[in-house]
Each structure stands twice: as C-alpha cells, then as structure tokens.
C-alpha cells in the first residue's frame, strides 16, 4: 500500500514548526543562525536515524535497541582518543575501530532478535536497556590510559563526559564550511551524510538488498523463494548496528563530547520519532523519510530551546520535546495496530 500524503504527525509537527518559526521571528532570533544549526543537526542525528532503516525494511520493526550500536561506536571513539589521533583522521579511526565491535555485537543482538519473532521491539528495548549498565561495568574499569578520559582523582575509570576539543571535535562539521548569505553551510558534513544515504540506497538495489526487502514484505513467500530468512534478518540487524555506530561517531564529533555511562539509554526514542515524522510506516520506509523526518524533528528541537528560555521556563522545552517524541511513537503504534485490526 503506497500512501503519499500528510498524516497527523507530519501535520502536527509542521504546524508546530510554523508556530515556533513565528515566535522565533517575533523574539528576533536570527534566521540564518537557525538554518545553519538546523543543517548541522540534520546530519548530527540523521545518521542515527538512518540506522533504523535496514531493520524496518526487513520487517523487524523499530530498532529500540539502538544503544547496542551506539556502544560499539563509543568503544571505537574511545580507542581513537586513547591513541590521541587528532583531526579528521581521529574521527575516521574512531569509525573504523567501531565497525568490528558493531559487527560482533550486532551478530549477538541479531541472534536474540531472531529468537523472539513478533516481539522484537519490546525485546530490543530491554536488550538495549540492560546493555547500558553492563557496559557501565566496563567503563568504570576500562583499561584505557589517556588521562584526558579518566577520572582526575584516582586515575581509574572513565569520565562520564569526555571533551573532544583537542582531538576531533567538529572535525567533520568544519570540513569545507562555506558561508552563503550569512548561512554557514557545512558542505563536508552534508556530503558525508549524502554519500551514506546513497550507499544505503544502492545497497537496497543489490540482490541482497532485494532479498532483505522481500523478507520484510512477505516472510513466507521469501522463504519459499529460497531466501534464508534468519540470515537475511541477521544481516539487517548487523547493518543497522554498524550504521548506528557510525551515527554516534558523527554525533559525538558534532557535539564535541563523548558521553558514556547512562547517556545512550534513551537515544533510540528521538531517532524512532524522527523517522516516523518523516512518513515511515513499518516496511514502507525510504531514505527520503529519514532526511525529511530528521530535518523537521530536529528543527523543532532546535528552535524550542531559545523560545522556551525567552518565554517562560527552560524546562518547558525538554518536556515538550519528550511529549512530541513519545506522542509520535504512540501514534504510529496505534495507527499501525488499527490498520492490521481493520484488515482482520
């Protein structure tokens, strides 16, 4: 079923965005600042959102276990910082180091998800949740040696927040940064995101990508066609985990800090919300949904902060963000449920 058109979440978020733009205009928040930051935030979070696509396509559902991929990325980043590699090379090293972890963790995660067919989302949520405290053990005893990452007193255990300023903070953000009419356009960053999207797009054109889509659309039919379903699903999970790991690397360099311990706990929910705003409906997920969704979602995030600060109380922004995030996910769950109910 291909339905194009504006659904309630999109309508709601666009309405909200226009309202906030209006407020921002009234409060004289400069527009070029908003656009520059919106472009950065698109990529900063966009890769994480992109990581949901393979699993959605394969019919596994929303990857609420995103923390698994994020942790692989954090491991890679920490290794890179531990070796004090600076600049773009440091970021590339971080991504490179994280991929083997992501493949290994993704393999185990896929094994779990293949055992719980039909209940992947809830299991993924709790696999992600329980992986965080498990990794907290590791973080507090990690054998890293760079003092910039360790607690200043005692010299054992990682800090919860590691500044990347002297390593690769904003390395990709500032690559080929151009200023057009007061708007700073991070061409390098956008190009990176574009290439990643294109690669994923091309992946779905390959034979394996087609098999993956077939499994998502009709598992029994795919099985009859001779596709090894468990294997294809496993690869979808691994791919999602690897992109998630790359996503956190991009996020961390853009943010300028590596956040360890409980920071990734809730990361899956804004990402899920973003892709749903973009118009993704289960198996019918396209890369354009990622781009549109992240842009809309992150821009509302972005503008709500200063507006809340000026208008009322700073907490409002955070509460509204959470309400929007969870409201959209809930809508999607109920909407899809209503559809399948009608079909029965």
């Amino acid at each position, binding site marked *: 079923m291909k339905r194009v058109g504006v659904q309630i979440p999109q309508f709601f978020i666009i309405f909200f965005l226009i309202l906030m733009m209006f407020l921002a205009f009234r409060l004289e928040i400069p527009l070029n600042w908003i656009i520059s930051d919106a472009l950065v935030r698109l990529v900063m979070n966009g890769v994480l959102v992109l990581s949901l696509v393979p699993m959605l396509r394969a019919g596994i559902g929303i990857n609420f276990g995103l923390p698994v991929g994020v942790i692989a990325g954090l491991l890679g980043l920490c290794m890179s910082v531990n070796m004090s590699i600076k600049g773009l090379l440091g970021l590339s090293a971080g991504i490179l180091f994280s991929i083997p972890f992501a493949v290994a963790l993704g393999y185990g995660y896929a094994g779990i998800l293949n055992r719980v*067919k039909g*209940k992947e989302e809830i299991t993924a949520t709790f696999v992600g949740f329980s992986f965080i*405290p498990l990794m907290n053990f590791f973080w507090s005893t990690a054998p890293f040696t760079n003092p910039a990452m360790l607690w200043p007193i005692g010299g054992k255990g990682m800090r919860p927040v590691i500044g990347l300023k002297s390593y690769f903070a904003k390395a990709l953000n500032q690559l080929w940064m151009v200023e057009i009419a007061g708007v700073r356009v991070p061409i390098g960053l956008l190009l990176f995101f574009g290439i990643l999207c294109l690669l994923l797009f091309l992946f779905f054109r390959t034979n394996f990508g087609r098999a993956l889509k077939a499994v998502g659309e009709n598992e029994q039919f795919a099985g009859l066609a001779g596709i090894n379903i468990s294997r294809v699903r496993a690869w979808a999970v691994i791919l999602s985990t690897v992109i998630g790991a790359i996503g956190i690397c991009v996020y961390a360099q853009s943010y300028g800090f590596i956040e360890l311990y409980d920071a990734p706990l809730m990361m899956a929910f804004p990402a899920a919300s973003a892709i749903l705003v973009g118009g993704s409906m289960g198996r019918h997920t396209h890369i354009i949904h990622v781009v549109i969704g992240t842009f809309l979602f992150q821009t509302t995030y972005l503008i709500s902060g200063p507006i809340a600060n000026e208008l009322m109380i700073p907490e409002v922004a955070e*509460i509204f963000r959470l309400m929007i995030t*969870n409201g959209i996910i809930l809508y999607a769950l109920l909407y899809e*449920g209503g559809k399948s109910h009608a079909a029965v």
Partner: protein
Amino acid sequence: MPQFNWVPLVFAVFSATAFYFSEMSAAFVTNEVITRFIRDGVMVLALIIPINAGMGVNFSIIVGALCAQVGLILAVDYRLGAVSGLLLISTVGILLSIFSGVIIGICLNRAKRREMITTIIIGFLATSIYQLIFMVGYGTVIQPTNQEMMLSRGIGIRNMVDLEMFRNVIDTLWLFRIESIEIPVLMILCVFGFALMIKYIMKTRLGKQFMVIGESLEKAEALGIHVGRVRIKAIVASTLIACLGHIFYILNIGMLDVYTAQMNTDIFSCAALLAGGATVLKADVRHAFLGIVLFHSLFIVSPQAGQNVFGNPALGEYFRSFVAYGTIAFALIISSKNQEKLSIKEKTVKVT
C-alpha cells in the same frame, strides 16, 4: 505444563552471595525487606491481571502511580488533615486511574500483540504530561492555594513536598517488635488483602474470561467473550491497584518526590515479579511475593557488596540496574521460545 523455573533460584544464589560479601546484619536486611514489601508489594500485584489476560507486562502502571501523586499534591494544596486528606487522595486517585485505565485499554486494543512496547511509550508520555502540568501549569494556568509548595519563582511545584500530616498515620498501627525486627502487621495484612482480592478476581467469571483471552484471542472470540471490553477491564483493574499501591508507597516514605517518585516503579515491579518465577504469559500472587523478597534483598545488599569486593559502590549499582533490565529481557527471550514450542505442539496435535 508446569515447568521448573530456575530464575528464582538464580536470584536466591545471587542474593545470598551478595549478602555474604556485604557483611550487613541479617536484622537490618530483614527490616529493609519488610519495608520494601509494604512499599512495593501492591505495585507488583498490579501486574498480575494483565499478564494473565495475555497483554504482557503492563508498564503503564506508572500512570496509576501518577494518578496517586496527583491526589497527594491536591491534598497538600488544600492543606487537608489526615483523614479528609486520605479520603481525597483515594477518591481522586481512584477516579483518575479508572479514567486513564479506560483510555489505556482503548489504546491497547488498537495495538494488539504490541501491548508491552505501547505501554512503555504510554508511560513515558504520561510522565511528560504530568511534568507539564505540575512544573509549568501550576502557577500559570492553575492557581495554587498553598504557596509553600511552590518554587520561589512562582511557577511549578517544589521537587520535594513534605507529607507531614500523613506520616506514620497508617504504617505504625499494630507495630510489633521481635527483638530488632519491626513488623507493621496492619500494612502487611493490607498487602495480603490485595493479594487475596486478586486471587478472588481470578476465580470469578471475569477472571476466567481473562484466562481464556490470555490463552488465545480467537478462542475467546469464538466463545462469545467481548474481548475488547474485557481487556479494558483488565487494564483498569491494573491501573487502579497500581494507584492504591503507590499511595501506600508514598505514605510509607512520608515525602513526595514530585517529579521522580514514580520513576522506574514499572521496571522494578516487573523485574521483581519475574524474579519470583513469573513469565510474561503467566503470573500468580506467589510469584509476586517470592519475587519481592528475592529482588529487593538483592537490591539492598548489592551496593555494599560492590563496595566491599571491588572498592566501588557504583559497581553494585550497575549490577542491580543490569539485573532489573536483564531479568525482563531474559524473560521476554525465554517466553517466546516456550511459545514456539507450544505452537509446534499444537500444530502436531492438529496434524495427528
């Protein structure tokens, strides 16, 4: 098909090991376990009905908890005394939780087979709405009568609200002492009362309907059960019990942590129930009781054990959050394995 569930055994071994290393006195741990039993017991019991009705773990018991907190805040706002306050709290709590239970039930009827993830998201959403009302709404839209509980900026309620007039109203009644162990008999009887009520509900016609729906939706429909309505009843009951349970919890503490008191009640209650040997498909009162004792004794001793063994109390904290989340993840994985076996059995029966 009664199958030996070794989860409680694992918990018992963990608790015993952690207790050994923590070097705490047995009397202290017993006292703490009794306190937790009173505080969290009813909350854990709230999960039993939806599980048996085939809806999985109802993580939106957090909504029930929020309803209780609304009642408590109102009682403080109008500066009510102990008796009238308790009346108001329970009335507001019960009405609100029935209302929200119906809404959650309607939502879950639209999200069949994905109830658990839906209840988690409902819990998150309800928490944000609650925060919006009391952090922003109070002082701007709603005018408080009691200025003492407001933040100094005039908008939003303080993080901590003292419930002095309710402290020790009900939990010191019939307090018995056996050497250094305190036993508040009335409160324990209250928890048992709830347990008996749930036992009773499961024996009634409604309870039988829950069981049939839990076995198979199709079967229930074939038997002419109004599935949607019965499922809503299950969630309303669960939310209501959770609300009452949370009132117990807050009154026992005597302080209301306005924005965080409800946090993690869903996860911990669920983990406790599963620790007692329940699965996401079948749960009973005895699982709840065994689970609370096992889970909470582990919770009490593990930070100190972490301190003694590794010289870092944080490790014990991580361990217990891992246990809480991990138990749930594990139960989900195990349950679908069992389900697969069951469905294979059913199929073979049909073939033969």
